[in-house]
């Protein structure tokens, strides 16, 4: 049995309204009623509901207009709507679905069918809410909003984008030399600064492990000039670390150094995991390469390293040094490596 949900029944006909509300209450849901579209819309805007059961023929504002208004309302556009109507003709059904209705049930509504459709709609809503919550957690509010507006494309897909890996040099010995509380504080400051730099350039941090992080530029949403955005974000990160170090040195603490690896190419992006725990991630050579380049910063003695793919898409204003070809773990052929800054 699904959890109790709060449903709104909009129908101008009192018998229909009472009967629908009764059916829903017998199924364990809580209900509220509205006698026309306008009242329904106002209620939806002022109170939270999980689902709307909507009649089409109503005075003041009919069901079609309610659907149109919901679609145009950012806060309400994801509310599942099941249209219940005795309206004649297939054209009405089609119009409702086109306007975003989840389902259409002819009146009189069969209670068994009603139960099944409501269960399916609520389940879909729960899933969507959960995904939205996850998006909120890893994306900036702007990105989350853009995604909500453009509709979720969360299944796996091929994207062309830029991946960044970053971590703190010598972090393990730093951890051993200071009290645990200080390590956590440092990490919190560090992540706050890094998120700021990455989000500020349109990137999305999708993984944090210890002192390392992975960010994507160009997914889940396309980003024009993603290679340039990633390198500029890297510059910003280095600058922020320098500011942090000035503070730390003033407090008599050791400076920290970070290394950043950037690679560009096509990858598969999407959600992976289980129902309980999922994460948005990218899989592909570019991801592995970015991780290897990040590790290679220690060898090269440079803060920011990138591959040829990133360099070829880079804004001309950003200068790079060709460091030559290196054999990197996991790659059969030597990789051309470029440094910036």
């Amino acid at each position: 049995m699904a959890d109790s949900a709060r449903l709104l029944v909009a129908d101008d006909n009192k018998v229909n309204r009472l009967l629908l509300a009764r059916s829903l209450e017998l199924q364990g849901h809580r209900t509220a009623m509205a006698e026309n579209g306008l009242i329904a819309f106002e209620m939806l805007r002022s109170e939270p509901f999980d689902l709307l059961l909507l009649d089409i023929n109503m005075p003041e504002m009919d069901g079609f207009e309610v659907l149109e208004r919901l679609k145009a309302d950012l806060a309400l556009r994801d509310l599942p709507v099941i249209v219940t109507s005795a309206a004649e003709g297939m054209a009405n059904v089609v119009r409702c679905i086109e306007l975003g209705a989840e389902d259409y049930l002819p009146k009189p509504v069969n209670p068994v069918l009603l139960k099944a459709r409501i269960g399916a709609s609520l389940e879909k809503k729960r899933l969507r809410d959960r995904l939205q919550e996850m998006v909120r957690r890893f994306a900036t509010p702007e990105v989350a909003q853009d995604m909500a507006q453009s509709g979720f494309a969360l299944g796996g897909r091929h994207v062309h984008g830029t991946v960044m890996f970053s971590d703190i040099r010598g972090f393990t010995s730093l951890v051993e030399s200071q009290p645990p509380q200080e390590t956590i504080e440092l990490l919190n400051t560090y992540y706050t600064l890094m998120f700021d730099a990455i989000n500020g350039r349109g990137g999305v941090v999708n993984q944090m492990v210890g002192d390392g992080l992975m960010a994507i530029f160009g997914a889940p949403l396309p980003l024009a000039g993603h290679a340039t955005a990633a390198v500029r974000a890297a510059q910003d990160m280095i600058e922020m670390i320098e500011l942090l170090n000035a503070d730390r040195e003033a407090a008599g603490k050791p400076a920290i150094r970070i290394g950043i690896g950037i690679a560009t190419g096509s990858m598969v992006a999407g959600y992976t995991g289980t129902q309980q725990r999922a994460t948005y991630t990218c899989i592909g050579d570019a991801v592995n390469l970015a991780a290897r380049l990040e590790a290679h910063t220690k060898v090269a003695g440079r803060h920011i390293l990138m591959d040829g793919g990133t360099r070829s898409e880079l804004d001309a204003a950003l200068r790079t040094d060709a460091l030559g070809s290196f054999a990197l773990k996991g790659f059969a052929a030597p990789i051309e490596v470029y440094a910036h800054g």
Partner: protein
Amino acid sequence: MRDPTIDLAIYRELQETAGADFVVELVDTFLAEAPQMLAELRAAHATGHAERMRRAAHSLKSNGLTFGATALAEQARALELVGAGADGAAALDTLEASYGAARERLLELRNG
């Protein structure tokens, strides 16, 4: 043989799914609301308001189907789809007669 005034199979099913006590309440609501719908239908016809007429007929049809008042629902549906036509007044008389019969039967069932 199914009774077109009130199809008992549909009425009993309604009682079963919504609860007999609730159906009593629902019948009362319908009998309180239906005269307004019929009056609206008459007024819309008299003033030539096709859309108002269609709406009122639609509501009556919908409620008729709920209680198993199949004759009433059929006649209301005809009005919804094609309007009153040339014999508007006669069609409305027939509809009101069907409603009267359905009303009586519903009262019997409600009290019985």
